[in-house]
């Protein structure tokens, strides 16, 4: 692999500068804007991680909150026992193991069966955790008393997002990424090319789940109290899918284009129309679906470069322009 070519160094360098600049945000704004920033970065990680698997394979997964919740629960269980970095490692391991199990048992499903399965998985995991707490620990709801400030959470999320983008970028240029795109175009062709389809899909599923789990683990100290209903709230899975689809899941920075406007929109609607939030949100979604059927990235592709094909090396031609 040609790691040190200029077309790798330049986008990574620009990205590094942008992330370094974003790290100074806490010294510029008050804690209200920090909470908004946390929201944006956490959704950015989730939507990008979701697209990493669902973009190329076109599997719509509603299991985001399963991994997010597992991360949060790991912190609730181990938070006061182990130092925080070790807790994160444990959360990552737990997420990986579950993702492997789920991946090998379900990624042979296709289409709507997979969607339904992932949605059911949320309920399954929630009930299993509830059952365990009710019958074994006899304590529903756990307390997370950790001295982790809002700024710490922000920096951790930012670092996680940087690692995620770098991973996605390298992946896009690797053999694995190429194999994924072939699977997305036509699974039969991929098999004939000698690609071990299931293994590639599971590998990606696990990678994407790992980032979701870590996001949940990082966010957990913010809530003080966690129970299965809070940790495994299916709304989160839907929000992530909507954001990723609005942005465009087939490009690395596409989801970000959905996350930023939608998070800001949620915020504006909540702040100004607290009593009409849901109905306004519904109207906005209708408008989006009618006006932007292929997402913001689709719009960009339509007007800027009609003939351009999506190639790995071009994916990050302008990370600076998009992230700024």
């Amino acid at each position, binding site marked *: 692999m040609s790691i040190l070519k200029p077309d790798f160094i330049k986008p990574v360098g620009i990205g590094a500068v942008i992330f370094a600049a974003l790290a100074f945000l806490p010294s510029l704004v008050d804690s*209200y*804007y920090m909470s*908004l920033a946390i929201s944006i970065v956490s959704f950015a990680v989730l939507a990008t991680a979701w697209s990493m698997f669902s973009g190329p394979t076109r599997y719509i997964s509603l299991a985001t909150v399963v991994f997010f919740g597992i991360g949060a629960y790991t912190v609730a269980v181990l938070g006061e026992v182990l130092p925080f970095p070790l807790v994160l490692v444990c959360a990552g391991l737990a997420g990986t193991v579950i993702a492997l199990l789920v991946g090998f048992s379900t990624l042979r499903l296709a289409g709507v069966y997979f969607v339904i399965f992932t949605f059911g998985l949320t309920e399954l995991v929630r009930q299993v955790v509830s059952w365990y707490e009710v019958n074994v620990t006899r304590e529903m709801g756990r307390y997370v008393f950790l001295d982790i400030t809002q700024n710490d959470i922000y920096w951790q999320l930012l670092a996680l997002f940087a690692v995620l983008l770098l991973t996605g970028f390298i992946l896009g240029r690797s053999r694995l990424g190429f194999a994924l795109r072939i699977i997305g175009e036509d699974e039969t062709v991929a098999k004939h090319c000698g690609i071990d389809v299931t293994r590639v899909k599971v590998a990606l599923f696990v990678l994407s789940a790992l980032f979701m789990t870590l996001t949940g683990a990082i966010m957990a100290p913010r*809530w003080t109290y966690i129970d299965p209903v*809070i940790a495994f709230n299916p709304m989160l899975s839907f929000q992530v899918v909507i954001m990723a689809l609005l942005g465009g899941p087939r490009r690395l920075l596409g989801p970000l284009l959905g996350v930023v406007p939608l998070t800001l929109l949620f915020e504006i609607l909540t702040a100004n129309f607290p009593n009409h939030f849901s109905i306004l949100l519904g109207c906005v979604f209708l408008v989006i679906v009618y006006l932007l059927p292929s997402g913001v990235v689709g719009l960009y592709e339509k007007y800027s470069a009609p003939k351009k094909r999506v190639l790995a090396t071009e994916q990050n031609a302008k990370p600076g322009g998009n992230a700024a």
Partner: protein
Amino acid sequence: MQISAKLRFATIAAATTAVMSTATLFGANAQETYRIGYAISKTGPGAPGAATSTIPNYEMWVKEINDAGGLKVGDKQLPIEVVEYDDRSSSEEAVRAIERLINQDKVDFILSPWGTGINLAVAPILDRAGYAHLAGTAVTDKAPQLSQRWKNSYWLLGTGEQYAVGLAEFLKGLKDEGKINDKVAMIAVADGFGIELSKAGREALEDRDFDLVYDKTYPLGSQDLATIVNDIKSLGADTFVAFSYPPGTLGLTEQSRVLGFNPKVFYAGVGTAFPLYKNRFGDNAEGVVSLGGASEDDPKIADYIKRHIAFAEREPDRWASIVNWATLQSLQQAIERAGTTDRVAINAELAKGGFDTILGTYKPGDQTFWQVGQWQDGKFVGLAPTSMEGAAELVFPKPEWKAAQ
């Protein structure tokens, strides 16, 4: 057409003037109101509870104070201005909304959200920003530690343990009098509240030599509990205890009636003290025991219930609503006693207590309210602690179920 166009113009002009003058009014009088903020579950799973125990009390409190000209702060009368948000029953939304209230809206005081989980999520933020936290609808065994941890937080409904122990103590009295046998059938909702109460209840009942002949949980949201009722019916327990949540509470009552399960003591959980329980079951509510209660002979309580009906067109529940109202009364007096809008001074007054409320002389966090109550003649009266003034006698045994109405 001519007239209507003119009328329309006039209307728009009037509206614009009104909006602009309101804006100027608020602009000019920025310091002349007391700004109260709250984020509460207007939508999502927490909405029915918030709309029963919390929102009507907040709105009624603000209206009564503003109708009287406002809060007396020093020599000024400050009307209350409200900033409210919907947390959509999500901890994360609640955290964000509270940050917004503190940093963007810069409100003077923040009233608590609804529910144990959300109150815990916002507690550290309120503490850090120096706001008092009057958590009106949280039941947690950690309550004593939490008020240690966050000095200005008050956990008004106390711990799950106290309700369970209060009930066990009350049942022991009945057993010692030979009214009930030592068999108790207990079920609980598989949620924080039910688990905490059943854990404490199990210990408290066994300590008092009761025999738990049935001890299981049912899933949150489940209404069809007929199988459980059928299982319990043949066990010969004189006492049935359900630490249930509203959907389950209603389902259990209905199915016990249909299946003719009528123990001498029938205890159901949250929701029993809600007015909707009486509306739904009518005369069949008679004799059902639950947590909470109110002695309506007390003129203050009776007057509160009357005002609540006049304002919200429905009765308050007989548990959290009453505690919430006593706390709002305390807050008003704390602000007026402090004579300033300075939060540190108000927090200090809150901590002193000694407020004159519908619960008598009260300090937020005092557990001076009913832990066991019963429906008697269409009123949910307090039974225990029996040492409290106005404690009613238990209607015993529970009357037979009547046919559905």
